[in-house]
């Protein structure tokens, strides 16, 4: 069910020749590259801020996985939507959110994308069809199916990309959602970003069988691809997104990737994997290096241009950190805003009585 002849052909010829990639202009390819670098530099800068104690709580970095979010989100059309878990910085940047608002959110500032109320795990931008940013493993997956349900209900030919990590596949809510999506033929693509470890537990120690093949139990289509090659991510996801948009068919796609950092940056990273393993991925599969090499081979990117992009993005990321640093914190009065729609829209309020208590 996973592979079809067309796709085998694409694979043999090279993913860069898949129609969805072949039609990219040089400028569009550079834009993809630029977004991947933006994620890398944003994460590195936020790590420095975390180490300087500017950022509290958890910080789940996306470095190593950039081609996944950028590849998938670059396929989103006008009516497509995306939702993800707590390792959400990459998706937020991939849909075009302003790094200033993201960094300010990490700093807990009023200028953050969630006004300092969400933090690292809870970025949102409905105007870009980005519905979070969710902290509980697998908890966002039913919401993703609900977005797809709404699209189908409203007769909109869009799809929802519902991301989860490899640790989410054993949550009950995920399986309930698989069943509902298949039963009601919802236009959703469940994307398992498999970075090999659910926190510190490897896939071999946590999950039985192939992750996306579980789709067969629900009569859904499924696929699997490498996540370090953005062309492969795009070629693979394009097929499943098309199935969802045009045939309202749900699917599960596993994308194999890797994270350079621990689960969250404060977590120990040497108890369950080796430095050599991390270095091996960095040396052979770093998604930015892989894409840079492909673009160089195509004559789209040279070293000077890559260095220029990098310098521009470093400056942009520094500006984001400066913006965050200079921004004000929310006030105590802000704590009880954005809790109820009705309280935030008093001119349209119908309820009476007391809603906040002492």
């Amino acid at each position, binding site marked *: 069910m996973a592979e079809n002849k067309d796709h085998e052909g694409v694979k043999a010829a090279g993913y860069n020749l898949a129609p969805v990639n072949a039609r990219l202009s040089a400028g569009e390819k550079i834009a993809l590259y630029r977004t991947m670098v933006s994620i890398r530099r944003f994460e590195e800068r936020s790590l420095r801020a975390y180490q300087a104690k500017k950022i509290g709580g958890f910080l789940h970095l996306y470095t190593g996985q950039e081609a996944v979010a950028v590849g998938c989100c670059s396929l989103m059309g006008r009516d497509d*939507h995306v*939702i993800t878990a707590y390792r959400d910085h990459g998706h937020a940047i991939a849909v075009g959110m302003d790094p200033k608002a993201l960094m300010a959110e990490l700093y807990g500032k009023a200028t*953050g*994308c*969630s*006004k*300092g*109320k*969400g933090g690292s795990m*809870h970025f*949102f*931008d*409905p105007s870009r069809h980005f*519905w*979070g*940013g*969710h*902290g*509980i493993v697998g*908890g*966002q*997956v*039913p*919401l*993703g*199916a*609900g*977005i*797809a*349900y*709404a*699209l189908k*209900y*409203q007769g909109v030919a869009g799809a929802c990309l519902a991301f989860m990590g490899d640790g989410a596949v054993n949550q*009950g*809510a995920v399986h*309930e*959602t698989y*069943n*509902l999506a298949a*039963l009601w033929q919802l236009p959703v693509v469940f994307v398992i970003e498999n970075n090999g470890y659910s926190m510190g537990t490897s896939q071999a120690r946590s999950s039985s069988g192939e992750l996306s093949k579980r789709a067969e139990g629900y009569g859904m289509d499924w696929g699997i691809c490498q996540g370090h090659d953005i062309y492969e991510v795009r070629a693979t996801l394009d097929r499943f997104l098309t199935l969802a948009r045009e045939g309202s068919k749900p699917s599960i796609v596993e994308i194999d990737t890797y994270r350079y950092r621990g689960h969250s940056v404060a977590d120990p990273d040497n108890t369950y994997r080796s430095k050599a393993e991390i270095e091996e991925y960095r040396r052979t599969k770093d998604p930015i290096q892989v894409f840079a090499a492909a673009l160089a081979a195509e004559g789209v990117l040279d070293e000077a241009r890559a260095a220029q992009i990098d310098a521009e993005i470093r400056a942009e990321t520094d500006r984001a950190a400066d913006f965050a640093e200079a921004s004000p914190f929310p006030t105590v009065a802000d704590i*009880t*805003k*954005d*809790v*109820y*729609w*009705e309280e*935030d*829209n008093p001119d349209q309020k*119908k*309820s*009476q*009585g*007391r*809603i*906040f*208590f*002492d």
Partner: protein
Amino acid sequence: MLISYREAIRQALAEELQRDPNVVVMGEEVAQFHGAYKVTEGLLEKFGPKRIVDTPISEAGFVGLGIGASMLGIRPVIELMFWSFYSVCFDQILNNAANIRYMSGGLIHCPIVIRGPANGGTNVGATHSHTPEGICASHPGVKVVCPATAYDAKGLLKSAIRDNDPVLFMENTILYGDKGEVPDGEYLVPLGLADIKRPGTDLTIVAYGRAVINALAAAQLLEQEHDISAEVVDLRSIRPLDEATVLASVRKTHRVLLVEESKPFCGVGAQLAYMIQDRAFDDLDAPIKRVSSIDAPAIYSPALELEQLPDPQRILRAAVELLR
């Protein structure tokens, strides 16, 4: 017209389904089976399978799906066959629906209603007899409503469906057959407005849900047998809470008895008692008293379960003691 509490809820659903094409009724057995408690009977035939949707037994899945759909403007009215099943979708209701507006800095709202019966007293044991209004209301971000009569059930449910925040609507299987007067035309009961179900002068009984019915029966006995005039305040809505009506009654009667079918510890009554002593300490002529379910899991034994829940006699005894 005189209709049952069940019919009142059904009318509210039908009227809102008719009014707004984004309203969807979803849940276990709500369509073909006509509802486990027949609340949704006839709706499938009238509105069709796109609007009245049977689900598999997957509360976390379909409640979460409803929350996601509500973010895009669908207005799902999700039936939990029993509110007791909230425990298997707790994360969806009280993490996702309750928090998503906040965590997005106000960018998102979830106009979802989750409704169903939340009561003991039907001999179904502890797993099916939960009364989670207090637990749910302790989560900012959701609203909690507990109607006692057909009139209130209809008017409150229509308001809940039009509300842009998540509303948890808690009914009572024992009340489904109770009949009450409901106007012929459309009406709404706003959330957060209590109702004085019986005026009185000697003490205030504050209750909600079926406890209101028992409080009214007790008030009648108090009048007949003890010449005590009890005012019965029906909260109707737990969050938002109509503190003003409660306090006005306390200032009139100077004595308060709280009645709830839930367990006493950290319950709605505890919040009310705190609020009353804080705002009306000088108006109180006696300590606030409370009658609630006896503090143990809901017992199965039909004879004993009646004793575990507040009944008119237990309310009456507490009232008499309060006035001694």
